[in-house]
């Protein structure tokens, strides 16, 4: 495709800025990754040197004021998942956010109690 013919048409086309430009070239967070539906929350620690944080960091940290799933953060802020993960990794390194302990593991299906709660919750919709 002729690069000059390339056009960004709308939101569906994805971000105008290449994702890695927002993460200083990184494609995955330092340390352990974040599951798609992992719940993260701000620890309440105060950010140190603000100059080290991009506006995306600040927005994400604000979004973590209450426990929130990683995928929700990505959808809410319109950021690609990979970008959210890298930036969350930065915030975690600084002790500003952490993965909240939840009952649902990533690699095994949830336990029977959770499954029943989901079933009951669906019936009650």
């Amino acid at each position: 495709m002729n690069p000059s013919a390339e056009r960004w048409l709308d939101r569906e086309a994805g971000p105008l800025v290449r994702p890695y430009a927002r993460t200083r070239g990184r494609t995955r967070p330092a340390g352990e990754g974040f599951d798609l539906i992992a719940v993260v929350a701000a620890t309440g620690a105060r950010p140190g040197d603000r100059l080290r944080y991009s506006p995306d960091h600040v927005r994400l940290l604000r979004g973590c004021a209450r426990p929130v799933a990683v995928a929700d953060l990505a959808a809410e802020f319109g950021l690609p998942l990979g970008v959210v993960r890298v930036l969350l990794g930065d915030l975690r390194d600084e002790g500003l956010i952490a993965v909240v302990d939840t009952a649902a593991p990533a690699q095994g299906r949830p336990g029977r109690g959770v499954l029943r709660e989901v079933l009951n919750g669906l019936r009650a919709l």
Partner: protein
Amino acid sequence: MVYAPSDPAAGPGPAAGAGPGGTARPLVTTKILIAGGFGAGKTTLVGSISEIRPLHTEEPLTDRGVGVDDVTGVQGKTTTTVAMDFGRLTLSDQLLLYLFGTPGQDRFWFMWDELAAGAIGAVVLADTRRLTGCFPAIDYFERRGLPFVVAVNCFDGAARHDPRDVAIALDLDPGVPVLLCDARRRESSKQVLIALMEHVLSWPDAGAPGHDARSPDRRGPAT
């Protein structure tokens, strides 16, 4: 964090609430995959029952990297983005159910492993006019041992099929539920999800203790 199997109403214990953030309220997140052939109605189903939002991931793809059902107008775009249908159902203050529409095209298979990890199960939407479209999804879930139901999306004008015929045509293992649905209707979509949950709970290993006891440290790696 352990749920007592004998007590379906048991909420997460105090330990789950004491997150690193000192959060007062535990939050349990679960997910169900919505799969099926191209145009089988994945987007419609997710949208009929939940608030649907676009979710992107930026995989290194170089052409037509848009995985939603409707490609009208997107052909020829150059993008590295995969879009997924993403819905959320708030089942209670502390229980969220996420629906992920699996990217429909072959080149996005790499996304499936992450989507399937930890999932409760899957709904495979079938379009009887293009039944073969859901073969890859069925093969994948069978190989992976992820429980699923097949929901035959009854489009206007599409011939109504006996679910038993569909099960035979798809060569499903006995016991895999097949039901008819209208993905446009919330109540119908809800019944599909309920059927999946009942199927999952009928599996003998559902909620094996080992699943409850897993540490969140075992969460899968980012892709």
